[in-house]
């Protein structure tokens, strides 16, 4: 019988294949007493050396396939495996208590696991998982149980798993793994990001996939809707096969546009940029025809860690993005945290209205040391490309001046320390508050560029929390109030000869694109997977024709009237 599960869409596309459950091996350890101590220690040594060569292979493969950074976790596993204290504790137990190696390994490891789990630092608590991972590997060799890995798969499948560990994901072979579904994880989890890089359709956070799906069942993964269809009936299967073919055909057509400029029917050129969260995302932006980076959300560097990323770690990330972009503009947004985004290691006082509270630039100006570390890392990396720095959630000119002053001070310090920096870094702001929109002409004189953050601009203009479902009807990108603001911002910037981009959801919206184009938006920044679709749309639009409609659009009364009018233009 057909059964539909709902999860979180993690990677676009549709896949249809048999389910392959990636089980956690049953490693039951019994306490046994042994008489032959030396042969028990031999068994231990053999298991350790097998584990060691296995880990070394995975580490090497990861280094080749991905990067040193991805491989670092396995170097850590190797150090745990070779830990002299852990080994001494295991052999000591075998020798003095005459217990079997399995039991000794488990007991000795558990001791460390409990030490780490009791620590205050959440980062250290997570290290307990590393010890468990290594213990599992040793036990699997002692017990002669093989740990299933994606490498064992020999036919086309959809992987069903509780979660994919880093050692799983680096072994995924996109030739055979047509999609994956996990019970836990979110859209920014390690496995979701990797799925997008490998362009494998994926749904995460399904909660019940492992409990409901059996090996060999036919699975449809709809990576766009976040749906999993188990045992589809004939009708559904045909519908999805058509959808899959259409997706592939469309993708192939769009792919032809990957290296084309984005030029309208009447010869006007705009820039299509990519939004990224990590250096790994650049590859897919370039592959999908992104010309520049319009938004590098640096908060992921902070959110994926359990403590502040160091200046060097940030420097490496910024440098990597700039080098990959090879001289093309790269807009990096300074830390945008607060509101709905938290850092486990940064105490933000509880606020009744976090979206109206201490967030983004406000928080950075309040934690100047943290802000300076980020700016130092950015300035040091600036020599590797065309860096532009953008401050989020600016509300007043004073905030911008203060941020700029800190930037100039950090820059001066680096220069006097004889550190090379790029002299021509542009400083811009996100326009996401009505206060800035209405004063855009004044801001335009001081900043180098604007980028409209449509999601927040809508939320703050409509005074409607976008997380609150009761008022979600007020999230109206086409409301003339929003459109008038956008027009005001673009005109003000152009009057001062400054460029305006947009990096919110609206920039990739099929209805909004013609309006934005008509208003003269210079740069549209969006997720990599939307770029080619946007390019194919813009190539079939005429800027002058749309320009002449803007006055009428701005005179309409409601969002629905705007929507209907845009639809009528299509006909």
């Amino acid at each position, binding site marked *: 019988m057909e059964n539909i599960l709902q999860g979180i869409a993690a990677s676009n596309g549709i896949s249809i294949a048999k389910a392959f459950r990636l089980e956690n091996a049953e490693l039951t350890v019994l306490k046994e007493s042994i008489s032959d101590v030396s042969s028990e220690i031999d068994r231990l040594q053999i298991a350790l050396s097998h584990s060691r060569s296995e880990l070394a292979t995975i580490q090497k493969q990861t280094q080749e396939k991905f990067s040193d950074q991805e491989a670092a976790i396995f170097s850590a596993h190797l150090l745990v495996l070779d830990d002299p204290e*852990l080994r001494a504790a295991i052999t000591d137990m075998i020798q003095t208590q005459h217990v079997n190696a399995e039991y000794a390994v488990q007991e000795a490891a558990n001791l460390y696991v409990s030490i780490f789990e009791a620590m205050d*630092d959440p*980062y250290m608590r997570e*290290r307990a998982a590393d010890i468990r991972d290594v213990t599992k590997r040793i036990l699997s060799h002692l017990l002669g149980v093989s740990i299933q890995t994606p490498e064992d798969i020999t036919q086309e499948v959809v992987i069903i798993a509780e979660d994919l560990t880093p050692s799983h994901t680096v072994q995924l072979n996109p030739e055979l793994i047509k999609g994956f579904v996990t019970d836990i994880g979110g859209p920014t989890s390690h496995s979701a990001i990797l799925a997008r890089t490998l362009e494998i359709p994926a749904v995460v956070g399904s909660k019940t996939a492992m409990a409901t799906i059996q090996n060999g069942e036919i699975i449809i993964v709809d990576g766009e809707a976040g749906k999993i269809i188990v045992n589809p009936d004939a009708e559904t299967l045909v519908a999805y096969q058509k959808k899959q073919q259409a997706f592939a055909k469309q993708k192939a057509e769009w792919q032809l546009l990957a290296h084309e400029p984005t030029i309208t029917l009447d010869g006007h050129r705009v820039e299509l940029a990519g939004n990224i969260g990590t250096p790994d995302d650049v590859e897919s932006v370039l592959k999908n025809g992104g010309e520049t980076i319009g938004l590098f959300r640096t908060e992921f560097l902070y959110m994926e860690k359990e403590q502040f990323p160091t200046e060097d770690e940030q420097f490496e990330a910024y440098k990597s993005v700039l080098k990959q972009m090879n001289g093309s503009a790269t807009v990096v947004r300074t830390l945008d945290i607060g509101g709905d985004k938290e850092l486990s290691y940064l105490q933000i006082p509880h606020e009744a209205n976090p979206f109206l509270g201490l967030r983004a630039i406000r928080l950075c100006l309040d934690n100047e040391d943290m802000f300076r570390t980020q700016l130092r890392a950015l300035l040091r990396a600036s020599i590797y490309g065309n860096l532009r720095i953008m401050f989020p959630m600016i509300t007043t000119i004073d905030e911008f001046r203060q941020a700029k002053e800190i930037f100039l001070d950090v820059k001066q310090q680096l220069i006097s320390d004889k550190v090379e920096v790029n002299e021509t870094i542009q400083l811009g702001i996100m326009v996401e508050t009505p206060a800035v929109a209405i004063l855009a002409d004044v801001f335009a004189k001081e900043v180098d560029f604007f980028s409209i953050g449509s999601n927040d601009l809508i939320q703050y203009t409509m005074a409607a929390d976008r997380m609150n479902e009761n008022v979600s009807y007020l999230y109206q990108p086409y409301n003339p109030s929003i459109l008038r603001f956008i027009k005001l911002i673009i005109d003000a910037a152009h009057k001062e000869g400054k460029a305006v981009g947009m990096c919110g959801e609206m920039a990739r919206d099929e209805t909004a694109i013609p309006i934005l184009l008509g208003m003269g938006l210079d740069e549209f920044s969006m997720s990599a997977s939307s770029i080619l679709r946007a390019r194919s749309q813009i190539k079939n639009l005429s800027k002058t024709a749309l320009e002449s409609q803007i006055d009428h659009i701005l005179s309409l009364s409601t969002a629905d009237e705007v929507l209907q009018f845009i639809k009528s233009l299509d006909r």
Partner: protein
Amino acid sequence: MIKKQFVFSNGEGLHARPAAQLVAAATPFKSELSLEYKEKKVNLKSILGVMSLGVAAGSTITLIADGDDEKEAMNKLEELLRSEGAED
């Protein structure tokens, strides 16, 4: 035997990466190498031992080297700690 004190000023404390580097640097030496922190002493060649101390940023640690190559070992470790932002 050589004993030396350091202030571990690296912003993240003795976390996985610096701990792993320290252990990797210590392992090849014959001397007995240990790390003392808050009256607890662990084998510097043991990643689990070193990390289980939970050395926080800005705290004082003591390195102890004892054996034939204690001088070379201490020099090597000192160099590494310095590059990680420790001061003596």
